[in-house]
């Protein structure tokens, strides 16, 4: 999928949506829903609320499509809608998480399994999930777009509206951080 190629077929869909074409909106949503959900998840770090926030984003896309000035930058525009919605929703999530983290502080990742312990794949996935949710949102965001859609650094940079070098740096640091946090889990 080309996020911001010279020719972006989704631009015509955006124009159609501006004219009130519901089918075009449905098709766009089907094609693009996953990365929008990825952005929401990456900002929130809470998969339980992804559905709820994402639906707000798509409703906002429909209702505010005429506010989009540069059709070529529609993904950046949707990204900002998604990010803002997730940030708003995240304020509540953060408060809740801080509370539950205190409750469950002794069950976090500080205790990797002993070398002789068998750690099956599901346990590693759960450990990774917690590690990803603990990443700084900026790192998590780049990692999500990279892994979810396979976007290039350039494509991610265009959507996030940051330099390519910044995307690369975030991806490097995300891996470094994950490795630090998950040391012991990957070796098991």
């Amino acid at each position, binding site marked *: 999928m080309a996020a911001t190629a010279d020719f972006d077929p989704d631009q015509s869909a955006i124009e159609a949506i501006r004219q009130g074409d519901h089918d075009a909106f449905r098709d766009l949503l089907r094609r693009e829903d996953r990365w929008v959900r990825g952005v929401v998840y990456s900002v929130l770090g809470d998969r339980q609320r992804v*559905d709820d926030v994402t*639906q707000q984003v798509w409703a906002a896309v429909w*209702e505010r499509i005429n506010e989009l000035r540069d059709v070529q930058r529609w993904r950046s525009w949707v990204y900002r809608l998604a990010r803002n919605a997730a940030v708003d929703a995240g304020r509540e999530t953060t408060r809740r998480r801080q509370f539950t983290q205190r409750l469950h502080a002794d069950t976090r990742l500080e205790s990797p399994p002993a070398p002789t312990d068998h750690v099956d794949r599901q346990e590693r996935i759960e450990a990774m999930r917690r590690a990803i949710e603990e990443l700084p949102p900026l790192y998590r965001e780049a990692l999500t777009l990279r892994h979810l859609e396979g976007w*290039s650094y350039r494509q991610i940079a265009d959507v996030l509206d940051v330099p390519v070098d910044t995307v690369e740096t975030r991806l490097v640091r995300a*891996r470094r951080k994950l*490795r630090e946090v998950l040391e012991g889990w*990957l070796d098991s």
Partner: protein
Amino acid sequence: MTAMNVHIERLIVRRLDGEITPEERVELDRELQQNPAARAMLDAYAALDELAATVLRESAERKSPRLVVTSAAPRHAVHPGRWMVLASALAACLALIVFLSTPESKPSTPLASASPALGSTHPHHPLPVVGSQPASAAGVWRAADLPEAHIDQTTNRNLLMVTDQKGNVYFLNLDVVQEVEHDDSPRMRYANNPI
């Protein structure tokens, strides 16, 4: 981490992300042959990527092909109770309002309202509705007519997005829910038969 290691780390990440140039690939391959730590880093990052991709895909995918209502709080419900919210959402999923549906479900009527959290509505093209006629008696849906739904939480919003078993996407307006009853034959009514 030394500057050299940082450089190698960056090359490793570029390789994993498919961004490495041929020249960098030669440099990295040479380093990997000579440096066990670099090889360990590549293996670790590759394993991390595989797991991370699994987690992120799972987190971003919709969990179920069934209708999923993540929230529901019908504003005009008159019989509060354990079944109220569930039945309302169930009813809403089928009966109400809908936006993106199959081609034969072309919209015909504007939504009664949009979520107040969403700002102004589309100025020229309000969200349409379909599914305007109950499957059973006029104005009343039976629970048996309704698809299965699951509610995770409540919300003050009145516009919900759900997907059905075919992957169609719907926006549902809960404002039209007036009453939900549940006994042996749960059913719901709509305010002023608005659709």
